[in-house]
């Protein structure tokens, strides 16, 4: 209980349009500093991308934000539009999703493979349903209160299944879906906890170009119609440059650039981090195109 009040102070000051304020985040594993004094702001109704070479510490940032790691130093402030301020670094892992409504997906998909697609989405609404079933008592005694709550949960699941075109396969085992559908299902499942901030860890990994385009539409849709802020780790520049409002570039755990896609694309430090020291040399054409990505 003490922790709960500590996690929700009233006197923390953050910029008015901030959704997630990361300040001086540092994560050390023994002698290794995975993230070094990282600060950035993810704003409301914006897609913020975190990019960087392999091993830059992107996933570690996510693990700190979603409670899988406790940061060594730093403050992670989430401004919930309804519930107010939450300090994520003081909250127990699962409470970040439960109370601060921060959802995430994983780099290597983590569905419940033997459960059906629909069940995956219903499990995501566990906390709401648990309350409605009075911790199973109302459910065990067949009170109508639970069955109506379950119907609502199914409706929400249907809404998302229709959005990604999985409605027909709702009764499939999730593990039997094609790879791209599994990625989309994981995003749906994260959306079913009704998040205010959605953290996506490489959602376009393994998708073909057509599927990447569909993913762009889905993410833009989530930002527009649901009003959910998105934090995105991605290597696919056609996704990042196309949909991001704001990009943070990491290298070796440090922030090396922060700004609009236009700014980041032309930032010499970013180019250096991606391509090495020889700045004078001309970029190989494919790489230049790749970085330019969606600008065309």
């Amino acid at each position, binding site marked *: 209980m003490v922790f709960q009040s500590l996690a929700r102070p009233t006197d923390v000051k953050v910029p008015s349009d901030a959704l997630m304020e990361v300040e001086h985040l540092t994560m050390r594993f023994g002698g290794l500093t995975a993230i070094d004094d990282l600060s950035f702001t993810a704003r409301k109704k914006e897609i913020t991308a975190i990019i960087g070479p392999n091993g830059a510490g992107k996933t570690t940032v996510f693990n700190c934000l*979603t*409670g*899988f790691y406790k940061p060594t130093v730093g403050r992670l402030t989430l401004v919930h539009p309804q519930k107010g301020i939450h300090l994520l670094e003081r909250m127990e*892992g*699962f*409470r*970040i*999703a*439960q*109370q601060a409504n921060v*959802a*995430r997906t*994983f780099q290597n998909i*983590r*569905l*419940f*493979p*033997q*459960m*059906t697609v*629909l*069940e995956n989405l*219903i*499990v*995501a*609404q*566990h*906390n709401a*349903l*648990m309350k409605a*079933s009075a*911790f*199973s008592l109302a*459910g*065990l005694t067949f009170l109508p209160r*639970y069955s109506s709550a*379950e119907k609502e949960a*199914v409706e929400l699941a*249907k809404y998302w*299944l229709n959005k990604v075109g999985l*409605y*027909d*396969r*709702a*009764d*499939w085992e999730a593990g039997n879906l094609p790879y791209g559908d599994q990625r989309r299902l994981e995003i749906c*499942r*994260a959306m079913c*906890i009704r998040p205010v901030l959605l953290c996506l860890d490489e959602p376009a990994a393994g998708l073909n170009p057509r599927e990447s385009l569909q993913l762009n539409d889905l993410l833009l849709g989530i930002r527009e119609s649901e009003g959910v802020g998105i934090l995105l780790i991605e290597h696919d520049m056609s996704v990042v440059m196309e949909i991001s409002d704001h990009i943070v570039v990491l290298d070796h755990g440090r922030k090396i650039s922060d700004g609009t896609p236009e700014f980041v694309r032309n930032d010499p430090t970013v180019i250096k981090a991606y391509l090495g020291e020889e700045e004078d040399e001309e970029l190989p054409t494919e790489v230049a195109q790749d970085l330019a990505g969606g600008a065309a």
Partner: protein
Amino acid sequence: MTVQVKDTSAATAPNVLFPALKEAFIASLLIVALGLPLLGLKADNQGPDLVLTKRWDLLGIAVAVMFVGRFVLAFLRGQKAARQGGLPQEKKKSGDNSIARLLNQNAKVLGLLGLLCAVLMPFVIPDANARYVIFISTTFMIYIMLGWGLNIVVGLAGLLDLGYVAFYAVGAYSYALIATHFGWSFWICLPLAGLFAAFFGVVLGFPVLRLRGDYLAIVTLGFGEIIRVILINWGPVTGGPNGIGGIPAISFFGIEFSRGEGGFASDFGLEYSSMHKIIFLYFVILGMAVLTNLFTQRMRKLPAGRAWEALREDEIACRSLGINPTNIKLSAFALGAMFGGFAGSFFSVRAGFISPESFTFIESAVILAIVVLGGMGSQMGVVMAAALIVLLPETFRQFAEYRMLAFGVAMVLIMVWRPRGLLAFREPTIRLHPKDHQASVKEAA
């Protein structure tokens, strides 16, 4: 064209012969190693002394049979594979069998039919066998109930529990102690025994919250032993190795099953028979088992039950969805233990005497075997596996000392035939479309 065919057959012929010979040789070596102590040497009693008889002829025959049999088998298989172009055919994925699917999809009908048979059984059984058959059926029902209880922990929540017998023991001793000291009736003690067992489930649950898989299995194994050792050594309370005797027998909701006035028979105008109590006990455990089943079935459709299954599938994903893994694990442990406790208190009211002997590790192993053999999480599978494990040794009784051998062979064969359990098929807890819809979509895809 013809030349080509000849070429391949000429090329493959030695390829088939040599590996087959090699395989047969290795198999014979194995038989020598295995058969030397089992067949080759035999210890006989001759008066006070043990005499070692050597039976090399028997061993020789076994090796020869193995060599020839293995060679023929490997050769034929190799030829078939060569004909089909190289690699031996991949085995069909087991556990996806249509029989299992059929059984599971009609589980409700089959379950009701089974229940009907179980209810009618005591009335139609011929009197000569009645006592024996009902006795065995009661034991069978206890194991079904234990299997269903453990299924919550192992099958649904995926927490490998090797110490389930501890909760069985807690339930049994709870009833025995309360009934002998306070004289409370079975029907009051039963829920209490369940509560105590659930409490112990939580006590075990707390230290193992962070453990999974092998480590969890070891700790639960230890817990089972701790309870047994406490029962043996806490003499003043548990009676130590002597156990507790004279446990009050079951009553028909307050009416004793006794001869003469005020007994069950005279109250209901029946002639006294010792069978009444046995049949009543059978119905009590049948009712308790059915209750366990209905409870589990309902729980699967509730958020808590779905969270158990989600936890089995991926704990990290559960955390990321805001599910509190602590509560989910503890509730699985507590509820699983509770049913173990119910079964335990039934065990003690039926036997009238309990001792730590009844709660050894082998009991846990048998219950776990029932769950695993049945197919993790499958309710119907538990019944079938319990039938095999409890009833099979009974049917093999005529083979006398080879009984356990035959039982072991049957188990091995089943696990070879169905490695994921007899009925490894999971019925979804909720559907959006009717069952046939799924098939049509799959065909279209």
